[in-house]
């Protein structure tokens, strides 16, 4: 057993133990312990990956391969490269901080939450198409219950919509995976094995779009992004964090690891179609965010824009842009988790998410407000925070691609940095600045110690990424 299986075994044991707990405090304590172990393991994985990479040049490291269902040649096979190591780290950070943002939740909530995390971790470490798909589904299903039971607002509608749309996406995905399996000429589902041969180009032409679309739905690809605003708006804080922070990255990661990795020829030919869609996502999401009045909607549309940029960069098919895509996934993951943590914090105190009903909170709850400003500045791409390096890497990479079409599209995408500034500053001006209008808001308490752990942890990540981008960029290319 390699170190990688820890990421599945720990939450599995945690799930079992959670089942045995008797009250919420026990469950919470247990969850904190469990996810702390995950976080430590993720950091340990990063360190040992760096050591191992120095002497081992295989595509994937820490590979384990166990035959699971011999008849269909399905293997439980895991392995990581630089990208997946970082995604595991991101997941561990967000899952860990998420616990601190769901302090008052009950046992069942933590159980679904843990199950969700099994799916997420499993997805990032698997190298077998079938297992990837299985973990993908494991990550999706708990969303339905987490939103449907513990959500707010039109939660049944949102939960249903989110699940159905993502399920439709996975139907495409499954078709794509079967297509790959039957046309690759191998009897294996292992990515690395399939990669050894070229899938016939005529098959690539239909498999690539289907697979890309399947993952794209989860990556909020226009016009299949509408689950995101409603889903996020109804989801409880920690679920929004995990969902926007990590789950949406499954889409980008999947496009990168499965669709483009296995079918580069079709990707080159067909990229322009999806580039147009992602280009629309980037600008459209940003404009959509400008006029929203619900904090979560603003953030959801902002996520459409930022995740659109991830897919945009992945499709540029050069190393710089793809490095940028991964940086953007990390950056958006941390940043949006931070946003949702803070929105949850504000909502818990003001009982509203409507920006028109809040004002002048900077004076009342300075700590939370400063954190919100930092999150906003990261989102609009301030140098020194994570958003800047990711966006710049993407733009430089995208610009290196020959052709007026790509150049113009890059310029269009770059326009989003202005629009982002508009909606971020508008939100800050509404909720944090100005005089306090609502008298009830004069007596709010600032962040508690556990909320501080959550937001400070994420901010440290954002700063680390913003100041030492080369460290992360190197790992991505390892």
């Amino acid at each position, binding site marked *: 057993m390699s170190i990688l299986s820890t990421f599945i075994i720990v939450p599995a044991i945690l799930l079992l133990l959670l089942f045995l707990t008797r009250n919420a405090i026990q469950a919470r304590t247990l969850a904190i312990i469990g996810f702390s172990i995950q976080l430590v393991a993720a950091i340990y994985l990063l360190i040992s990956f760096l050591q191992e990479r120095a002497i081992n040049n295989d595509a994937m490291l820490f590979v384990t391969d166990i035959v699971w269902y011999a008849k269909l040649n399905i293997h439980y096979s895991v392995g990581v490269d630089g990208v997946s190591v970082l995604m595991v780290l991101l997941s561990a950070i967000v899952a860990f901080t998420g616990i601190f943002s769901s302090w008052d939740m009950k046992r069942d909530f933590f159980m679904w939450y843990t199950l969700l995390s099994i799916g997420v971790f499993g997805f990032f470490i698997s190298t077998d198409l079938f297992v990837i798909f299985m973990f993908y589904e494991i990550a999706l299903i708990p969303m339905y219950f987490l939103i449907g039971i513990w959500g707010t607002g039109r939660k049944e509608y949102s939960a249903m*919509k989110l699940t*159905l*749309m993502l399920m439709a996406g996975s139907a495409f995905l499954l078709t794509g995976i079967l297509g790959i399996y039957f046309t690759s000429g191998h009897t294996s589902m292992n990515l690395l094995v399939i990669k050894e041969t070229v899938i016939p180009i005529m098959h690539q032409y239909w498999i690539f779009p289907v697979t890309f679309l399947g993952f794209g739905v989860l990556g909020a690809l*226009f*016009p299949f*992004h*509408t*689950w995101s605003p409603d889903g996020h708006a109804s989801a409880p804080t920690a679920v929004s964090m995990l969902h926007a922070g990590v789950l949406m990255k499954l889409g980008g990661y999947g496009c990168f690891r499965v669709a483009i990795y296995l079918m580069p020829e079709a990707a080159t030919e067909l990229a322009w179609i999806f580039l147009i869609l992602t280009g629309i996502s980037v600008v*459209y999401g940003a*404009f*959509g965010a*400008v*006029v*929203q009045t619900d904090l979560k909607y603003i953030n959801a549309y902002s996520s459409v824009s930022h995740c659109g940029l991830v897919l945009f960069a992945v499709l540029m098919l050069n*190393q*710089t842009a793809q490095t940028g895509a991964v940086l953007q996934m990390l950056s958006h993951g941390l940043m949006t988790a931070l946003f949702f943590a803070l929105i949850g914090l504000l909502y818990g105190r003001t009982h509203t998410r409507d920006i028109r009903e809040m004002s*002048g909170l*900077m*004076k009342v709850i300075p700590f939370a407000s400063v954190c919100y400003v930092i999150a906003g*500045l990261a989102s*609009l*791409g*301030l*140098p*020194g925070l994570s958003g*800047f*390096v990711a966006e*710049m*890497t993407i*733009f*430089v*990479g995208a*610009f*290196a691609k020959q052709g007026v079409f790509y150049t113009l599209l*890059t*310029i269009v995408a*770059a*326009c989003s*940095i*202005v629009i982002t*500034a*508009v909606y971020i*500053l*508008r939100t800050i*001006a509404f909720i*944090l*600045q*100005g*005089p306090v209008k609502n008298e009830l808001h004069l007596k709010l308490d600032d962040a508690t110690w556990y909320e501080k752990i959550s937001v400070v942890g994420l901010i440290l990540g954002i700063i680390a990424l913003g100041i030492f*981008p*080369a460290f992360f*960029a190197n790992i991505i290319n390892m």
Partner: protein
Amino acid sequence: MNFTLYILIIPIALFLLIGLSGNKMKPRMAGIIGTLGMTVSAVLSYLAAYIYFFETEKINGIFQKIVPLSMEWLRFTDKLHIDMGILLDPISIMMLVVITTVSLMVHLYSIAYMKEEEGFQRYFAFLALFSFSMLGLVVATNIFQMYIFWELVGVSSYLLIGFYYTKPTAVAAAKKAFIVTRFADLGFLIGILILSYYTGTFDFGILTEGSAALVVGSTAGVSFMGLSVASWAMALVFIGGAGKSAMFPLHIWLPDAMEGPTPVSALIHAATMVVAGVFLVARMFPIYVFATPDVLAMIGYIGAFTALFAAVIAITQKDIKRVLAFSTISQIAYMLTALGVSGFGGHDGLGYMASMFHLFTHAFFKALLFLGAGAIIHAVHNNDITQMGGLRKYLPITHITFLIACLAIAGIPPFSGFFSKDEILAAAFHHDKLIFITLWIVAGLTAFYMFRLYYIVFWGKKREYEHKPHEASWVMTLPLIILALFTCFSGFIPFSKFISSDNQSFAAHIDWTIATLSIVVAFTGICLATLLYRRESNRPAEIAQRIGGFYKATLNKFYMDEIWMFVTKNVIFKYISYPVAWFDKHIVDGMINQTGKQTENASVAIKGMQSGKVQFYAIVFVLGVLLITVLSLFI
């Protein structure tokens, strides 16, 4: 010269120290630590300037570029990588001196000026952050490092304009400043991307060497919509500069930025940040002059127009800080025009030298004017000059220093502004007569509006003030005096010995014909102002009445704010964002919802088929068999 690193490290350390300790640090402590830190930075800058200009050996009479520090920060491709480093050459050394000096004065002044304010520590933390970013900007070794600090400067400006965050006007002004400059920065960014794509480097050293200017020039053949790609790139880069330096039509944020605390206006919106655009063009000057002279000419015209435009508006403004803000726009435009009319090397590069000279002198006298305005506002608790008058008795030190600054900006010898302005006029005269005449008129207007301000505030009718105005403490007057000394004597620095387009000393003499012309026009302006405003009378109002519409237009700043408001409110919000949001909710999401609804309808429609009634199934079965039988008989 490795010690220059500490010039930057000190302010960022101050920012972290003051910012993180928050309210745990005593307000006074924060001010004193900040001021002491900046003192060290300033002393180090002077030392650097001394060593660079007098001790370091020149090769063939050329000041060498020194890069004491450069390390790779982020690598994009084999060729493109962002470095973080320090580049010392005459203009960056000059900027170090300017920034640290003005910043130090502002720090000291603020200890008294901001004494009663809540968030005193926050204020000093932001000041330190700004100083750090601005210093990083001027010593950048490559264009991307410059862009990074450019953005940091922008955000520091945002934070400081919005310092009084409970005041809605301040919040709006901060937002406006950030978004307008962000819009301009988009141009800058795209310019950088194009430039680096064609040259394969971000590095200033390589970019501005003759050979790389050729690389840029060689792409001149590749054209796009009538302009060469190189011209596009450099024009886009200039848009970034125009945004920060408040050139028409991107100037609209600067007057509003006066909502920030007055010392901030002195530091950021008069002396340092707003000249970043000038610095940018100067930094990339070889490319402009060799590869894209068309863009350089355009810069000259935009500058000349903005100089005139802003000067006209400044005449009618009633808020003391707004007069100064428009004056700043006008003077920065002067500097850019000087670059626009400049050639390269020796006396041809007179405009370049003059631009930097004016940047240098302007920083001191404009900071002095703003700090003086701060002292006035501090004394009378009002920004409106129509509510002031006769203040010379109450504020003697402020009065004298303010007068010195007014004389300097009006271009009266022997104050510093005269020398730098004269060089600019000389450069313009030899290059383009139209630009020269425009600048000459602006010089007269400048003298007029400054002395209008001066007379209304310090002379005019004596008013009854609620609290008797009195001079502020030495902490505030000392910076005024020091800056006044700079204003008096900095004109005598033989600038062309140190700064020139090719870093080679040359001799620049005062051209007395042009100097006489400029002195005449300045005196005319001053005399006119004396006649109209020395004693309060209704003559100005009569004149305003007579020119009616034009007066109103200037008072309303030629309605530029309204035009921009129309663009943002209507175009961005009404015609793009709301439709996008509507489209998303009703069309895109509507389709998804319809898919769900139609699936449901379809299942309702066909669910009768599975009723569970055996008789019904039997009938369907029999009918089916019959149908098949009949069909098979006939086919």
